[in-house]
């Protein structure tokens, strides 16, 4: 059975990717269009708004691609159990496979999308150094974080169907609450806590260390991200374990 499981995981990822781009003529290109459109908007409208940021295009783009991975990943995971209701009801495979393979598909799209954007970033002044290898732990940590948030949302969404609606409302709000298109130090002192308690702020720090500064991620923020991820994963695990047995009757 275990050898078979690897095969099942592979197959579910394949199915997700197939479903995602099935009925679109442009297929994979759509996933590039989204960040590209936003990039154009920010470049035309805000390029002179933040003179404190050097190389604004690179600043925006580095935040944007990771934001889209986060927002797309969590939204997909939010629906994952509902979408796979029939499979969950008929196959005896661990239910965690569904969010895992869903995120696997998102991760593949994200990584594939990263290639053309890194070319664009290169022309924007991205430093091609060995420091880019730090992307591997950063992306890994970020993926675990997205998985944990998604697992919480997805599990609760089985019982309370408006969790998905709620998340679709919060999601764009989080975009503006995160320093993606603006510098964090622009936020007035008394509202700083909003930014600092936002987990994405810490991830954006280490992402920009690598992409924007061309250095290694700062240890301080790396530790913060690690703690955030561990705590979120723990909460996700506890919630999931508590309610997973109720999935079948509520799907």
């Amino acid at each position, binding site marked *: 059975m275990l*050898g*078979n499981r690897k*095969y*099942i995981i592979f*197959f579910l990822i394949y*199915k997700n990717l*197939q*479903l995602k781009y*099935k*009925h679109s003529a442009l297929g994979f290109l759509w996933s590039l269009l989204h960040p590209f459109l936003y990039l154009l908007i920010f470049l035309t409208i805000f390029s002179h708004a933040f003179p404190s940021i050097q190389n604004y295009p690179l600043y925006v783009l580095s935040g944007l691609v990771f934001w889209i991975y986060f927002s797309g990943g969590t939204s997909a995971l939010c629906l994952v159990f509902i979408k796979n209701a*029939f*499979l*969950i*009801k*008929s*196959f*005896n*495979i661990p239910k965690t496979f569904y969010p895992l393979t869903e995120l696997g598909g998102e991760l593949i799209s994200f990584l594939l999308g990263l290639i053309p954007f890194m070319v664009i970033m290169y022309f924007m002044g991205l430093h091609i150094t060995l420091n880019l290898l730090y992307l591997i732990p950063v992306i890994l940590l970020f993926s675990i974080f997205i998985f944990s948030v998604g697992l919480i949302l997805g599990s609760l969404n089985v*019982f*309370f*169907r*408006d*969790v998905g609606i*709620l998340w679709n409302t919060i999601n764009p709000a989080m975009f503006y609450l995160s320093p993606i298109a603006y510098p964090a130090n622009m936020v007035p002192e008394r509202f700083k806590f909003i930014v600092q308690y936002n987990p994405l702020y810490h991830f954006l720090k280490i992402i920009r260390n690598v992409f924007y500064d061309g250095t290694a991620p700062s240890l301080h923020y790396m530790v913060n991200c690690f703690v955030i991820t561990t705590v979120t994963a723990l909460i996700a695990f506890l919630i999931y374990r508590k*309610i997973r*047995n*109720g999935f*079948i*009757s*509520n799907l």
Partner: protein
Amino acid sequence: MESVIKLHNVSVSYLQSRKGIHSIKDFILKASFIAPFQKHRVLHHIDLDIKKGDSVGILGPNGSGKSTLLRTIAGIIHPEEGTLQTHVRISPLLALGAGIELELSGYENMRIALALSGNYSKATRTEMMEKVSDFAELTNEQLRMPTKMYSTGMLARLSFSSVMTANPELLMIDEVLAVGDRGFQKKCMNRIHEIIENGATLLFVSHSPGEVEEICKRGICLKDGKKIFDGTSTKAAVVYNKLFD
């Protein structure tokens, strides 16, 4: 004969949202902060011993726990109490629309069903795909269409054929035969007999006592989550019919 499935004192409960709370809005309005979920028991203390090669029909009114029993045996639901032992390769449960992804084509669904039912070599898979399409009597053109365009009968043909060709050790069927046309039903019956003759074990949920008598030697009757009868299929059919008198 050796037991392949053994249930001892198995009880299954579902977690249900209390008072019909299905959204956070309800949750706040109805202010049931104490316990949003409550347990609802679906199967009560079931004892069951199924031997290798048994063909068991499961009868019972709607909501009596038949599907839950199959899902428990398949390992999809975990018992709250009691023990469950299975000594058989569990194949996917065959229920209406089970495992079918409506956006994907018939071929793609077939590939997924085969992938989920066992680890076969590429050559075997190609061979099995052919067998499945033969059995399902679906044309190449139909199999290329997204399954959302299928009729209920075609969907049943597809899922039924995918499971049936895999030579299961344990075949679990949950009311899928009813939707196929007469010809396909006959074909399925023949195939089921063939699978049983090859030594497989069958669990068959149906609302038709006649079908159960025809296919199964043994019959079980469930009511309100309790096993009220376990014996020959003929007697089980009588017990079942009496429930509605």
